[in-house]
């Protein structure tokens, strides 16, 4: 089970390796059902390209892909 500190390092590594991607909508830190920290990758759409580029884990920390679409200000 990864700690918050481990997830922060993994997130930083993954953020640097992904760079700017048209489908990327954010990288953050979430949690799994057991309370362990995971890296959460938000995308506009889940495609084969996304699955090829985003690893399932980084430095032993699980990476989850979530489709969130496009964000807009809410006023």
């Amino acid at each position, binding site marked *: 089970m990864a700690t918050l500190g481990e997830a922060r390092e993994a997130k930083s590594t993954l953020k640097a390796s992904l760079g700017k991607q048209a489908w990327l909508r954010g990288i953050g830190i979430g949690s799994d059902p057991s309370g362990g920290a995971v890296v959460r990758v938000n995308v506009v759409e889940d495609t084969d390209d996304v699955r090829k580029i985003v690893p399932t884990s980084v430095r032993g920390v699980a990476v989850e892909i979530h*489709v*969130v679409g496009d964000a807009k200000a809410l*006023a």
Partner: protein
Amino acid sequence: MRIESVRSLKEELCAGCVDASVRGIGAAAFSGAVPRGVALGLIQGGNRSDWRLALRLQRRSEQTLAFMERATSLASGEVDARFVGSVHGPRASGGGVPELATRIRPLRPGVSIGHYASTAGTLGAFAYNASEQLVIVSNAHVLCVPRYSMGDAILQPGPTDGGTARANDFVARLSTVAGLNADGVNQVDAAIAVVEPDVKVVIEHGFGGLRGIDLDPASGSRVWKVGRTTGFTRGVIRAVEVDGVEVRYGERTLVFDNQIEIGGLDGAFSDGGDSGSLILDSRGRALALLFAGASVSAGKAAVTYANPISAVLQELGVRLVESA
């Protein structure tokens, strides 16, 4: 009910197959399929195999109420019926929670507010600035427009909800703006406005008041807010320290780092017009300022984005007014 049974009933209702029997209960004006102002769907009940007919009324009329009565009878009472009012898009429209989208005095968190040339958002909280003046905290995109001036009038309710500068709707003056930088990465979308001296306020946040600040919100924590459009909603933090969040503001797209992502527990956590809402945890501690949202498609997987309240307060140089 089994999901197949609910689907079948929904299809029959949509096709008007139960038309004759509906007339039989006295809805003379009802003629055929689902009347305007009623939406039908499926909703899960108490367990995974328990489904109910979801019935959403956007207007109360003889036809819609008669339809609801008949649908409830056909479903043997296994109906989740709610009055939802007008449904609107992501920009604030006239469809906010009625008691929050009207003129309300004394001012309190959760009500409609906005720059005089803007639409409407939500009054998030009250705070004191460095000069010990009482200020309103909300988003920059709620209290500002692209060409703003310090001292601009802030209205309650916001213009979309009928607020006008010439009436007694002028409640505060724009004072400080943070964020909305198009050339770099933003941390917050926040602003404050100094409350006019003769405007009375209530500090309470609806459910137990504001009791401190959560400086380190964690993924999995339960949260709630009161906003101008969706009112009181509950959610759970899905992610923290989210970087690279792209948010559309009309024609512009701005990037935010270190954001909090929230999912709704009982449907969407927010909608257009909820911007500026203060988000609190179950202990009544403030943890974030709501400013954006995304959804893959209507009614599915909606997420809300919020600025950590610690960053908001630091950028604006204010401290929140807590409950007594």
